[in-house]
């Protein structure tokens, strides 16, 4: 682990320069250990693929104190992550939501049924959340599904949409513009600012997608409102 100053109010703990499950466990373990300390001087923790940005109040904590806090946690040995739950996210892969399913099938040389089977057959790790509230960076998509994003992003993508961008897959938690290839939609509300916690999934969780039909989508959507 290296600790580098990132700004006048933050330091970055860096665990490596390549994505690996071990590196991710280190990031998550430090994230959880710091979160558990509930140090009021620490304002925000941003996990990334291989690093954790620790943002603090520079009027009450120095860079040296922040670094020492991180090093002390690393020295006693970071707890190994992974008692995290495996969550199942229902997804309707009907053409109504999977606007780009045909394209993904054509690009990958798979049938639509094969795309759905592969996508819902894998277990994904939530590496971290970022970009927008509740958006998860997921690891573990089968390589066969790799499809480049749209040349021109859509102006509005429905909340719950599930998409593919290159080697990544993800769920749009809220309606936003977006360039991912859409293959389905979940009726589950991924982000609710009034809920505690406001996001359905957390860094460190594992998730699977389970295919549902249109009627089930309607029922679940109604239940989640």
């Amino acid at each position, binding site marked *: 682990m290296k600790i580098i100053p990132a700004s006048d109010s933050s330091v970055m703990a860096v665990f490596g320069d390549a994505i690996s499950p071990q590196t991710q466990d280190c990031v998550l373990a430090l994230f959880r250990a710091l979160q558990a300390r509930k140090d009021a001087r620490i304002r925000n923790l941003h*996990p*990334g693929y291989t690093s954790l940005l620790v943002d603090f109040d520079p009027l009450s904590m120095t860079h040296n104190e922040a670094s020492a806090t991180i090093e002390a946690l690393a020295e006693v040995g970071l707890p190994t992550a992974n008692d995290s739950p495996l969550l199942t996210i229902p997804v309707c892969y009907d053409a109504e939501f999977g606007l780009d399913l045909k394209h993904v099938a054509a690009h990958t040389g798979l049938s639509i049924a094969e795309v759905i089977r592969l996508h819902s057959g894998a277990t994904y790790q939530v590496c971290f959340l970022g970009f927008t509230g509740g958006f998860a960076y997921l690891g573990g998509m089968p390589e066969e599904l790799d499809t480049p994003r749209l040349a021109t992003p859509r102006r509005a993508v429905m909340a719950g949409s599930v998409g593919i961008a290159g080697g990544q897959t993800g769920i749009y938690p809220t309606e936003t513009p977006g360039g991912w290839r859409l293959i389905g939609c979940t009726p589950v509300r991924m982000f609710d600012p009034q809920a505690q916690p406001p996001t359905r999934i957390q860094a460190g969780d594992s998730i699977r997608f389970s295919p549902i039909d249109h009627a089930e989508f309607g029922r679940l959507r109604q239940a989640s409102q």
Partner: protein
Amino acid sequence: MTIRVVKPGLFTTVQDRGRFGYVHLGISPAGAADLLSLRIANLLVGNDEYAPTLEMTLLGATLEFDEPAVVAISGASCDSKVDSNTFPMSSAVEVPRGSVLQCGAATDGARYYLAIQGGFDVPTVMGSASTDIRGRFGGFEGRRLQSGDLLRVRGLERARTRRLRGGALESIRRSGILRVTTGGQRGWFSDDTYEKFLATSYVVSEQSDRAGLRLKGGAISTREPRQLLTDGTPLGAIQVPQDGQPIILFVDQQTTGGYPKIANVITADAYCVGQLRPRDAVRFTEVSIPEAIAALCDQEHWLKEIWED
């Protein structure tokens, strides 16, 4: 009491200090783009310094008061009027019942803050009253104000208003030179490129908002093409995407990013970023982290010393 929005202005939102402790869920801090002016406006009317205010952008709102109120405006200068009288900047003013406050165009910056004694009464979401525009929550119904909105004000026993010393605000310059510390990927850029970055006078693009200020100027690039694994982005990080035109990440920023960060605007100059207008010129000058912290301590000290009595 309620305040009716007669005209919303260009982009008016409820903001306070911002939302802390949620970036790991992808939720940016939001909060005032010029926190210093928000604090001054609140202190003038006798509020808690971080009470919810209205942040107005370039062109302000027109508001009608159904009860007498004590309000103050601080930040970029604007020609504002209450009924037909000039409304002075940076002082607490009693606005009579039924009057209309017409907030004008910002003339020497981008934003100003309207504080009202008691503070605006909006629900606290995740510990803050700030509007999260992208997430559509916080502030007033998670959005910018519209004509016809009715804003409620928290009742408050009459608080003591404060006055600024004459010329107190003259010593804070809203300069076009922003102080920076080196960024996490400074080493990805050659010394020549970094010198060029510091020597360039950039222009703030029209495509700038509270999430990021896009700059236009001589393009800069890393020594070799290199992909950054998405990581956390500090407030004020200056990232350099492939087109070589730097972007200053700001209060509504994405919480993680995938572009190298060459430098980072210091906390003490964050309010200057909040006052940059499209087409303004901006340059960067490097300071050390201890210098940045010293500047912040000086600023906090200054904020205590500017009051009469």
